[in-house]
C-alpha cells in the first residue's frame, strides 16, 4: 500500500485520446446541431451543425518518496497537447417575416477553426497514509491537492484548485489481488469564467491477476461523476426537414 521509508519511485505514462462522441452524439458527422434564436435578426432562427476533431496527448511524469513506512509523498506533472479542428455549418431556417418556406433553408458561410496548444497541465501533489496493514494488502487514505497550473484558455487546465480525499483498500487471494477505492474532490471556482467546475466523486473497483512471474493483468471498473455541471440535452427538432428527423442538442 505504501513504498516504505526511503524508497524512491519515478515514472511516466503516455495516453492518447481521440474523442468520438459527447453525450452519445457523434462529434464529427454534424450530428450535433444548435438552434440559435433571434439570429441574425430578432425573430430569425439559425440551425448550426457542429463538427469537431479533438485529440489529446498526455504525458504524466510522477515521482514518489517513502517518508516513513506508512507515509508516501508524490507529485504528478502532466504535459499535455490538445489539438482541435472544428467547423460550423449554419443554415438560416426561419425568418421573422416568414419569407423562408417550411422545409427550406438558406445556407450561410461555413466557419472553420484549427488549432493546437501544449504545455503543463494541472499539477497534483499527493500524500498517502497507510492506516491499516494486512498481509498482501491493507487500507490507506490519500489526499491530493490539484494546482491550477494548466493554461485554461487552451484547455490545458481548469483554472480551479482542487482537494481530493480518497480511500484505498486491497487484499490478496492467491494469484488475485482485488482492490477498491472511493474518493471525493472539492473543486474551487475556476478563475476562467468560461469554465464551469464543481465537486466530483468517484470510485474504482478492480483486480490484478498474476499471470506469470513477470506479468500481471489488471482489470478496472472506473466511475466518476461531476456534480451540478450542465449536460447536453436533446431539444425539439427545428422546423424543416433539412434539419433531420432526430433531436437537436441544445444547452
Amino acid at each position, binding site marked *: 500500500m505504501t513504498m516504505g521509508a526511503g524508497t524512491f519511485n519515478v515514472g511516466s505514462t503516455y495516453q492518447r485520446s481521440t*474523442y468520438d462522441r459527447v453525450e452519445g452524439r457523434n462529434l464529427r458527422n454534424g450530428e450535433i446541431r444548435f438552434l440559435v434564436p433571434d439570429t441574425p435578426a430578432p425573430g430569425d432562427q439559425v440551425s448550426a451543425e457542429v463538427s469537431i476533431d479533438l485529440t489529446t496527448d498526455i504525458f504524466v511524469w510522477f515521482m514518489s518518496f517513502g517518508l516513513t513506512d506508512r507515509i508516501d509523498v508524490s507529485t504528478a506533472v502532466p504535459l499535455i497537447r490538445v489539438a482541435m479542428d472544428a467547423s460550423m455549418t449554419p443554415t438560416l431556417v426561419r425568418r421573422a417575416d416568414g419569407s423562408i418556406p417550411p422545409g427550406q433553408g438558406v445556407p450561410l458561410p461555413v466557419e472553420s477553426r484549427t488549432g493546437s496548444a501544449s504545455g503543463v497541465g494541472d499539477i497534483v501533489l499527493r500524500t498517502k497514509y497507510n492506516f491499516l496493514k494486512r498481509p498482501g494488502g491493507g487500507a490507506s487514505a490519500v489526499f491530493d491537492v490539484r494546482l491550477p497550473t494548466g493554461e485554461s484558455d487552451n484547455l490545458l487546465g481548469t483554472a480551479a484548485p482542487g482537494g481530493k480525499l480518497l480511500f484505498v483498500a486491497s487484499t490478496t487471494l492467491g494469484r488475485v489481488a482485488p482492490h477498491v477505492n472511493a474518493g471525493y474532490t472539492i473543486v474551487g471556482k475556476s478563475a476562467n469564467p468560461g469554465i464551469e467546475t464543481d465537486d466530483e466523486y468517484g470510485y474504482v473497483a478492480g483486480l490484478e491477476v498474476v499471470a506469470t512471474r513477470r506479468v500481471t493483468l489488471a482489470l478496472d471498473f472506473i466511475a466518476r461523476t461531476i456534480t451540478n455541471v450542465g449536460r447536453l440535452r436533446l431539444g425539439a427538432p427545428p422546423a424543416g426537414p433539412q434539419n433531420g428527423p432526430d433531436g437537436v442538442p441544445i444547452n
Partner: protein
Amino acid sequence: MGSVGLKWHAGRTWLLTSGVFFPLGDAGLIDQLTWSVGFDWTR
C-alpha cells in the same frame, strides 16, 4: 469506463505498463478506445 491493462516486470526495479480504456456508457466526452503506455523505476 472500464480498463484492461498489463504490467511487465522488465528486470531489476523496472516496470513497464500498458492499458486500454473503453466507455461503458454515453455520459460526457467519449473516446471509443484510449490507450496508454508507461514505465516506472524504483530505488
